[in-house]
């Protein structure tokens, strides 16, 4: 879907979320902790939200939200972000986009 692809390939860290999703909130907290401010797109506030949900699922996400893209590439959902972080791979990935130095 064009809209999702377009938004996902924006520079930096992109998070597809829903305003009611508390797990998405947890992801933003983690990113904040790492000095990164993601661009958040709340798909439940978007008129094309349903389409976007389906498109995100098609990209291989188990649940449509949270879906994290860094530098245009899909990292995954909370599972993938946590695995990456624990293996030490998340911080190097986010380094170019850190706005606050911890």
């Amino acid at each position: 879907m064009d809209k999702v692809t377009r938004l996902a390939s924006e520079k930096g860290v992109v998070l597809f979320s829903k305003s009611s999703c508390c797990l998405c909130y947890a992801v933003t907290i983690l990113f904040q902790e790492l000095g990164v401010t993601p661009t958040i797109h709340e798909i439940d506030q978007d008129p094309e939200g349903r389409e976007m949900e389906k498109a995100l699922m098609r990209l291989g996400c188990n649940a449509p939200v949270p879906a994290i893209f860094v530098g245009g590439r899909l990292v995954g959902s909370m599972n993938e972000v946590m695995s990456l972080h624990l293996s030490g791979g998340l911080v190097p990935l986010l380094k170019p986009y850190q706005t606050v130095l911890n």
Partner: protein
Amino acid sequence: MDFPSTQFVSSQTMATYEPIHQIGMWGENFKSISNPNISASVIVDVVNKLENESETTSHEMLASSSKHDQEASKPFDKIQRRLAQNREAARKSRLRKKAYVQQLENSRLKLIQLEQELERSRQQGLYVGGGLDTGHLGISGAVNSGIAAFELGYERWMEERNKQICELRSALNAQISDIELRILVESGMSHYFELFRMKSSVAKADVFYVMSGKWKTSAERFFSWIGGFRPSELLKVLVPQIDPLTDQQILDVCNLKQSCQQAEDALSQGMEKLRETVSATLASDQMGQGIYVPQVAMAMEKLEALVRFVNQADHLRQQTLQQMSYILTTRQAARGLLALGEYIQRLQALSTLWANHPRKPA
């Protein structure tokens, strides 16, 4: 010409047939819930409304169609009209379905609360009659069997784990080869992964059961964080047991601990947000009108997220274990697993000791 009007009639009966058929199906589903008394009046109400509405609709349609019959009926118009009638019927059907589902939700809520009261009274020995077989308590029955299966599985899991601890202990004291030790470490790790799978399964049945940690001893529950241990806490306890570590290993473990704490922090704050959301939803109306209100069903939708949090916490535990196995040598990993197993056994011993120690009189 006869058949244009008969075509009209059949399309109308088609339009009105479908909603009734659907109601029939919903009625069937509803009957499977144990208490027929609640359902009967609901179904009668809705079906009555439905029949009254559809009768007036079909009368109106028949009246207008006989006027237009006389024109040289253009097939295009006929098709358009039929499509419009179908759309109208479908729209009405959707509205009726919505109202039906809403009533269904409310009745289901009443039913669950009645079942719980019944269960409570039975436990208190107040309900003597044996008429209600727990197998037929549809909703809570399935949950109970999921929990019973888990508790049985956990008992076996514990026995196996205790056996593995003994094996590790004797293996580390004897001088067995790294290869043999590796096998013990691998089976120890997969044993923990098996527990996470079991927890994930029972969380689907009853997430509150997992959150409560009921299957664990009291001292273990004291340290509970989202249905289990906090991985960074365990790292703090166990790493000193694995000395000596190389400088690189110390650095790696330190980074792992920090990443773990950050992830835990994010999940904790997400949980807090979830609590706020559920609380706000429950009390989002002007209260004082009783408890059988949509707010409760709405809050339940929000609560579904709790399953995801429990799964994420277990995923974090699993990843921590996995990363440690990459950082440590086989021997170190074996010592770590032994220490972890023994630590939990000590917590369990603490619980037993506490339960049995004489208390000062009040």
